[in-house]
């Protein structure tokens, strides 16, 4: 499977067919999920309608973590096997993950204001997610800091692996420390502790977020691959001394495209 996917041309053909369907499925799941969670789901007996922030906050937090895990695994694959697509995938996923992390922090802050009376609290869960956000930013900055993009990709891959240390800290921060943030109520030993009328829209939102991620990832990977090809064409065109203007350029572009 890994080797089969290593061919960028094959990936381009496959993704061209998958992306539209994936995007439509994401739109459908998000539309259903948003309507269900914002209109149909019951208000909480304590929190009232503010609980509806959860339907965006929790899936965004799950995505923030799982996208980082995805970046780390793709980075490991890229470092170990020099897999050409894994490096592109890691680089394409990181900004999307950073956006999910930002959404998680922003909605959490909006939720914290009415519930805890503060926009921000320095407890372990919030602090560790903030560190995750900075790790994403560091990854993006490092990947773009080199003149040679593949060098940046490899350096960022090492950083992604170093940052994995933070993931278990985030996951278990609510158990290890006495935090204001509530402990896990869905992914816990002994099954979810949340009523089905709230769990169902939450899971649909999570599905919508995941599909959105896959669609965005593929679009970004396609863009990155096209960008690389354009750069290779331009470099190749520049390398040939064109005594007759226009001529050498057209020729080299032909020889370069597979």
């Amino acid at each position, binding site marked *: 499977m890994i080797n089969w996917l290593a061919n960028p041309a094959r990936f381009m053909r496959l993704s061209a067919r998958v992306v539209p369907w994936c995007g439509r499925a994401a739109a459908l799941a998000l539309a259903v999920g948003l309507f269900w969670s914002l209109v149909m789901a019951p208000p909480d007996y304590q929190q009232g309608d503010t609980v509806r922030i959860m339907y965006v906050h929790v899936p965004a937090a799950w995505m923030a973590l799982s996208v980082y895990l995805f970046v780390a695994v793709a980075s490991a694959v890229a470092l170990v096997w020099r897999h050409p697509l894994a490096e592109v995938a890691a680089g394409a996923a990181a900004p999307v993950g950073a956006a999910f992390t930002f959404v998680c922090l922003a909605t959490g802050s909006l939720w914290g204001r009415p519930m805890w009376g503060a926009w921000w609290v320095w407890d372990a869960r919030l602090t560790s997610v903030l560190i995750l956000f900075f790790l994403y930013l*560091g990854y993006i*900055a490092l990947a773009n800091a080199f003149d040679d993009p593949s060098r940046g990709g490899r350096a960022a891959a*090492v950083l992604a692996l170093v940052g994995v240390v933070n993931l278990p800290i985030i996951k278990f921060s609510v158990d290890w420390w006495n935090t204001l943030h509530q402990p896990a109520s869905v992914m816990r030993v002994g099954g979810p502790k949340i009523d089905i009328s709230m769990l169902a829209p939450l899971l649909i939102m999570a599905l919508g977020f995941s599909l959105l991620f896959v669609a965005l990832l593929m679009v970004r990977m396609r863009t990155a691959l096209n960008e690389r090809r354009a750069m290779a064409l331009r470099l190749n065109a520049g390398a040939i001394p064109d005594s007759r203007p226009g001529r050498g350029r057209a020729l080299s572009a032909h020889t370069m495209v597979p």
Partner: protein
Amino acid sequence: MAAFIGLFRRDLSLALRQGGDTGLVIGFFVLAVVLFPFGVGPEPDVLQRIGAGIIWVAALLAALLSLDRLFEADYQDGELDLLALSSLPLELAVLAKCAAHWVATGLPLALTSPFLALLVDLDPGSVATLFASLLIGTPALSLIGSVAAALSLGARRQGVVLSLLVLPLYIPPLIFGAGAVEASAAGNGARAYLLILCAVTLAALALCPWASAAALRQALE
């Protein structure tokens, strides 16, 4: 082992003979701490309350300031290629360089801290804790910093990238280092914090040389 000690001594004597290094770091450390009373006002109770945090943050920034020297000169003049080719594993070479970096910067920072603690009016018990926490925590700063320094070798605007990478990773030592002094000032005993800080340093000792060596290898390709 001889190569390890040789590399350690070479790095240390380079850092000490070029003079500037240690002196600059300490100068920055002192100045950064001295700035705070001007910013927050000279009331002793305020300074006493935030003193430990100020000193720890200033120590982080001072350590950050010296990180670009860890590999940069050797990368520029080709030493690093020779190190990678030598019989000494690159992980051990990183460890030797980190040890030299710690003796040239981390240790002086810890030794200076009791004097700065007087400036912010910490009580004697807290001064001892502060000294202990910096002594335990600064090796972690050198080790974690080595990963970021190796990763950012040859990057554009290296200093900015380096600080963006390293400051988030410095948060755990900062939390437990400053927390230790806070606990001892509150009379709760700093033992638990210092032990966790030891754990952070030991984890960094076990993991960071591998990550730094991997980063150096890809920088040298």
